[in-house]
């Protein structure tokens, strides 16, 4: 059976900031966006809609690849790199 994506992310080091480095303007998701690309382009599977239909992102497990940002034509994401000592730290890659 394939390894769960959460288990894969569990192999990486994430140093957690107190503030999210990705903020979603859900208004844009619900009015302008037509493809919900973030739901299936993210290689860490971090995006999901909550039970109220709002787009959410589990930014803590972000690999900082920026794919969601590049694929989000409606520009619903305010996306920056985590600052200071935070974010993913690869030990091999």
């Amino acid at each position: 059976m394939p390894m769960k994506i959460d288990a894969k992310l569990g192999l990486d080091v994430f140093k957690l900031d107190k503030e999210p480095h990705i903020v979603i303007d859900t208004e844009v998701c619900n009015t302008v966006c037509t493809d919900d690309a973030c739901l299936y382009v993210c290689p860490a599977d971090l995006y999901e809609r909550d039970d109220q239909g709002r787009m959410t992102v589990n930014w803590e497990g972000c690999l900082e690849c920026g794919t969601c940002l590049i694929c989000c034509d409606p520009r619903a994401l305010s996306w920056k790199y985590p600052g200071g000592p935070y974010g993913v730290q690869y030990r091999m890659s």
Partner: protein
Amino acid sequence: MERVECIVVGGGLAGLSAAYGLAEAGVEVMVLERGDYSGAKNVTGGRLYLKPIRDIYPELWDEAPFERPVARELVTMMAEGAHTTVEIASDRFTAGAPQSYTVLRARLDQWLAEKVMEKGAMVVPNMKVDELLREDGRVIGIRAGEDEIGADVVVVAEGVLRLLSSAAGLATQPKARHHALGYKEVIELPPGVIEDRWHLNPGEGAAQLFMGECTKGMMGGAFLYTNRESISLGIVVGMEDMRRRRDGTESWQLLDEFKELPQIRPLVAGGTVAEYSAHAIPEGGISQVPRLAGDGYLVAGDAAGFCLNALVTVRGMDFAVAAGHLAAEAIKRAKAAGDFSAAGLASYEGSLRSSFVLRDLETARTIPSFMENPRLFTHYPRAVARLLESVYTVDERPQDGLVKKAWKSVRRDFLNVATVKDAWSARRI
């Protein structure tokens, strides 16, 4: 405002290469790196073509922490249920000075950063740059948190997302059409197992690329590089194709499905996944290279779009090192002339144009649009498999002769209007 002569934004291979050349020439240089160390935020597929850059900083490479010199090259065309692999093991890939090595960035970049510091440059980890400071259109320094630091020249080696240069209006924001997502697992395997599985002499490495089924017809492919005690196994998929896809396929599942294929399973059997990583890749080719130099700044590495996916060779890190070196050369000239304006730094672009960096990107100008042809990832892998399946198949019926079998297959799959058109558009790649 505190000042240094040169600030390098980004401690990857381009930034470190620039800093090495500058520090060696006694230029005061400070590298700002987001990660815990250089390499902590970087991802490679895995292979560095060393041959093009061996003569740049020749004293460096003999002690570089490479994984394995690549002695064996494999390309696998994947149709559903049938994989065709073309393989070459050539003495000339490894004789004397090997042309390419598999690498892991956490090791490689961290080592290079130490070399840069030995030359007298300052490399500051855990330091994210928040803004390129501009005055009258000229880049005059950077802001990191609350601190503003001035510089005669800023080397923008910030990586593929170009967050700073696009915010400063020096480049456009990256577009899905010109980018691919690459992601991989590093899977630990004992060295002896790696050598047995890929038929390698001790210490030697293999590079294997896959195209076809692994991306479900989307632009891209899979890759496998053998490291010393692990393999890097991953997927590259065009972002535009991926987001246009509406069949429920999620990007991260492609690798799992790939690993489960009966043809791939034995390659990873017994391995332990040790890391999972992802990165965007600039695949727009030369048409997407931004302005490379302006008043007070130069751009290098992924931020400059210096990356070339030519189907069987995938390059970027060698371009980064070369561009960093040429940036350092241009800055040294600008310093001698006391002119860090666009005119003073213009020799950078000139030397890139006469180097392999922009020449090879120019040669490959048509590849990005050629690769938008979906038949490359669907029809051709299938056609090759059908051809070989037909000549290798023996059943209860009377068999055609070998040539007749092959000819039937060639006529059906390779001689039609579409393939002739494809051949025509491929004539210049």
